[in-house]
């Protein structure tokens, strides 16, 4: 595939209090960023289940953007730090699957940082574009013909390591 | 023993040779080793950049590349001349900031078989090394003959404190590090509000009137506050204030006769080196009469007059606040 024309699909997880509002603010301020990212709103970045991320990759996403409040500014005290730990372990885990860890990116964005979030999205899209489409043969093997990772299979894949990360 | 790469700059080869000799002597007293970057070239001063951009950065880039190459990675590069210091620091900073500039400059360097990775050489001014890396305590321990009674106006000039790239080590308007250093060697530091003003740089060559105005302002301010000697940290500042003092006197009908010494000469004297070793006498305005003011014992501190009943309190100095914050 010609990388010049490759349009990656990125799934972004946002927290209801900071980063989703930053995305709203980017809109209100008419800041432009590439349309490759599709956002899912959660209450908190601490809600991010590693399975979500793996499911996104299995379902055809080329990158996953995890966003939350800045450390110390979590609406739920410090759940964003749990997202941080999970992200770091996720990056290690996906690397073991042969996925470039850069495909999982964590960005802190406060409700005031619309421009910052938009810039981070633009940067990530360019980076993933440079990496090219995700190729994850392990999942194909696990699932047979299906390209969808069921939660059940995912939890097998995820292994104890992620349970540790979740804590 | 701390080791630094050393970039003397053209002026220290001849015009400011005493700066080089005195800083080397002082370095030894302070356990510092300065290894000269082999085959360094001119930094371009403020001239090359006015004609050509990429060659100007490539010229500085060669020095940075040589410093990095000569096994000095991780070591700081010390420049005693403020203009050289800024050129080296600014080139490193801008190359890191602008990928395009970096690409072009490295393409030029490649023609000479060199390469420079922005950020690999940490450029520092000599004053910064002595006040921050060595520290005042160690300087104080090296003092053998304190300069009691000598009234010094510490002159910083521009390029050591300005521009500000991710924070400089001292204030851009009213720096104080050399003040403290001069007090550490026993000297008395006079109030010198013009301490970071411009010496005129190359304007002596382009518009003497502008240059003389600036030099006059500096000399007048130091003399107004009772200084015996001005301490300089840059060869250009020293040259302008020293060599043009005559011209200022003629132009303004003044009679300034204030010697301009490098701060390292003053440190050297306090560390016990002889006047000859410190190159005293090389300056055009002879420093020896002023140095004769050095006392054996410290002057009695002038008692601050009791504030009158009506006097309103002054806000505390920012430094005091800062140190309070550090203690918290």
């Amino acid at each position, binding site marked *: 595939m010609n990388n010049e024309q490759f349009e990656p699909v990125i799934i972004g997880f946002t927290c209801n209090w900071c980063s989703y509002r930053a995305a709203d603010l980017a809109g209100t301020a008419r800041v432009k960023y590439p349309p490759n990212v599709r956002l899912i709103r959660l209450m908190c970045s601490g809600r991010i289940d590693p399975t979500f991320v793996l499911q996104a990759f299995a379902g*055809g996403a080329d990158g996953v953007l995890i966003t939350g409040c800045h450390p110390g500014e979590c609406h739920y005290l410090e759940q964003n730090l749990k997202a941080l730990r999970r992200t770091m372990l996720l990056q290690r885990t996906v690397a073991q699957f042969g996925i470039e860890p850069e495909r999982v990116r964590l960005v802190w964005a406060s409700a005031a940082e619309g421009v910052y979030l938009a810039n981070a999205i633009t940067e990530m899209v360019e980076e993933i574009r440079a990496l090219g489409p995700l190729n994850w043969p392990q999942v194909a093997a696990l699932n047979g013909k299906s390209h969808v990772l069921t939660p059940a299979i995912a939890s097998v894949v995820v292994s104890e390591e992620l349970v540790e990360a979740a804590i | 023993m701390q080791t630094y790469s050393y970039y003397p700059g053209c002026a220290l080869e001849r015009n400011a040779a005493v700066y080089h000799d005195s800083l080397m002597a002082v370095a030894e007293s302070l356990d510092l080793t300065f290894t000269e970057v082999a085959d360094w070239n001119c930094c371009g001063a403020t001239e090359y950049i006015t004609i050509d951009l990429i060659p100007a950065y490539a010229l500085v880039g060669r020095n940075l590349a040589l410093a990095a190459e000569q096994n000095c990675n991780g070591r700081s590069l010390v420049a005693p001349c403020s203009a050289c210091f800024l050129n080296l620091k600014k080139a490193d900073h801008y190359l890191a900031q602008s990928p395009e500039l970096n690409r072009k400059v490295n393409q030029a360097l490649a023609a000479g078989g060199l390469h420079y990775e922005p950020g690999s050489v940490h450029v520092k001014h000599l004053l910064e090394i002595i006040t921050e890396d060595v520290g005042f305590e160690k300087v104080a321990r090296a003092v053998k003959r304190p300069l009691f009674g000598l009234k010094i106006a510490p002159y910083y000039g521009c390029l050591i404190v300005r521009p500000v790239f991710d924070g400089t080590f001292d204030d851009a308007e009213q720096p104080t590090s050399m003040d403290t250093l001069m007090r550490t060697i026993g000297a008395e530091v006079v109030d010198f509000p013009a301490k970071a003003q411009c010496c005129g740089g190359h304007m002596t060559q382009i518009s003497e009137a502008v240059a003389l105005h600036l030099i006059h302002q500096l000399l007048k301010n130091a003399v107004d506050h009772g200084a015996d000697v001005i301490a300089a940290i840059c060869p250009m500042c020293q040259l302008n204030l020293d060599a043009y003092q005559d011209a200022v006197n003629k132009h303004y009908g003044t009679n300034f006769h204030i010697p301009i010494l490098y701060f390292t000469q003053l440190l050297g004297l306090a560390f016990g080196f002889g006047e000859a070793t410190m190159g005293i006498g090389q300056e055009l305005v002879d420093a020896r009469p002023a140095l004769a003011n050095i006392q054996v014992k410290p002057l009695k501190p002038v008692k601050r007059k009791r504030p009158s009943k*009506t006097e309103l309190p002054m806000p505390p100095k920012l430094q005091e606040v800062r140190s309070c914050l550090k203690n918290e």
Partner: protein
Amino acid sequence: MPQERIGVYVCHCGSNIAGTVDVEELTAWAGEALRHRGVVVARDYKFMCSSLGQDLIAKDIKEDALTRVVVAACSPHLHEATFRKACADAGMNPYLCELVSIREQVSWVHTDKAAATAKAKAVISGGVERVIHHAPLEPMSVPINPATLVVGGGIAGIQAAMEIADSGFHVYLVEREPSIGGHMAQFDKTFPTLDCAACILTPKMVSIGSHPHITLLTYSEVEQVDGYVGNFNVTVRKKASYVNSDLCTGCSVCEEKCPKSVIDPVFEAGLGYRKAIYRSFPQAVPKFPVIDADNCIYFDTGKCKACEIHCEAGAIDFEQEDQILELNVGNIILATGYDLFDARRETQYGYGRLANVFTSLEFERLTNAAGPTNGNIVLRDGETTPKSVGIIHCVGSRDRKFNNYCSVICCMQSLKFAHLVKERTGAEVFNFYIDMRTAYKEYDEFYQRVLSEGVHFIRGRVAEVTDVSNTPEEEDKLVIQIEDTRIGRQRRIPVDMVILSAALEPRHDSDEVAHQFGISCSVNGWFIEKHPKLDPVATMTEGIYIAGCAQGPKDIPSTVTQGAAAAARVLGRIQQKEMALEPIRAEVTEALCSGCRICNNLCPYTAIVFDEAKEVSVINAALCQGCGTCVAACPSNAISGTQFSNEQVMAQLHGLLMLNIMEPVVS
């Protein structure tokens, strides 16, 4: 799962969405490509949020027996409530409606129409998949405790407290300093009318002090905030004042007798002195002094007790300790005010080095009849009247190195200063400004008045204030060096006194305070309001309101307006008696719980406890705030998060990636 009957509604939002997204194509696509997922109706309309748009949905719910609704329009933070209500009015459970954003996240941020339309399809597809898994919910209802906490006793807090207490509801007013009054109490005159600040403020302060519905907690700070709207639990530390307020008569003899004088950095802005036992100022409310233990001779050496000896009421109590108070309130108003920019940071203006450079707050004290000079405008020596005064605007404001905003009040304040100097000393006055900003009722008229008084106005930002003199006229003067931008020339203007109109900054601890109360600060550090135009005193956190300069720099009229507005919002809540809360909570399915207790320590609100008998974890719904961390962490999938269940998120993901579409869509 029986097939749901889903309606999809695409909003044009005028041209806001339709300008960048092909709404017709999008609607047609949703009706076709998502039909197999249950979409039975797909419509587009100019403004879905209008009553006609809402009627459209209501009609379909009734006539087409819709069981789910997806609206593709603006951010759920704007209109989720609108569409939920529309659905509820039509007889559908409101939580079966999903609002997806194709404005903030699509049309406003993208430019390519085809790409934007393609993304909008994915977003709708995600919404449709998600809404299938929605469950009908009932909002949780909580009672509203009618008591209110107001933090900060400046004019904003005073106004807010007064409005609420006058309506008959109880207010706890917490103030850090020994007296209420805030910055306004330090001022002499207020612009543009020049009425005396004390004359209009002190009566209000007195009313606060004696109000039957106000508990005044001065010299106190909030330590901890728990709970949620309607039912906050607030811990307040009332610092030991070492004065028994039951006995103290406020006679101030102790202050006279105290031998220890210290510079007062707060009320006198460092320009005057107070004693170690002190009231902030004579009209302080409450009238009781406090002992500053850090400076008290007795606390230092164990000797002195001059205050105790001379107190006839026997009110001095060196044994007093800090008190911890627990308050239960339903709503909280934060009116914590501002700090003045530390003008020493702009070294070129010489504040702290040059004696006769003053800050705006110092000058307020200098002009105040009750200030250190009894209102005489004099130099730092306390005696000499200046013959020329320079007033510098925008010190620390409109400057990327310090504060990248306009502090709003400085132009008017500087005009006021110019007038006062002129009126009281006849000195020559120079105002140095970048732009003159006098936008409010009667403000520009005041500028006209000061112009007529012969004050010089020099347009330009001052380069430096220096004591380096070049000419005999400059000797012993402060020289203001500036480019006079009216003539494009550099000028050096010698003056006797310089006043720096310093910026208003967020309180130094505003970040910690925001965190404590669960709200956020903007990039510049001001508390963020719920909506910058339409909801300026509410915050994203239910039950927490903001007023005055804590929200951003503003003058006294705007501050008072906000104080009253916040009070009105709180009174509205109190009158409701109870309010509906979003049912976003986590639940444990006991049959799946393995009792591993991993979730127990994760909860920031300690809402999860372990039931020893059943050996399962249990979530207390009243404490749970719905962050979902436990849901994500549960290794047995035993915890589900209402509205954000695994099924819902997974389904949305599935939809966003278009895995639900039979044939790949080529856009």
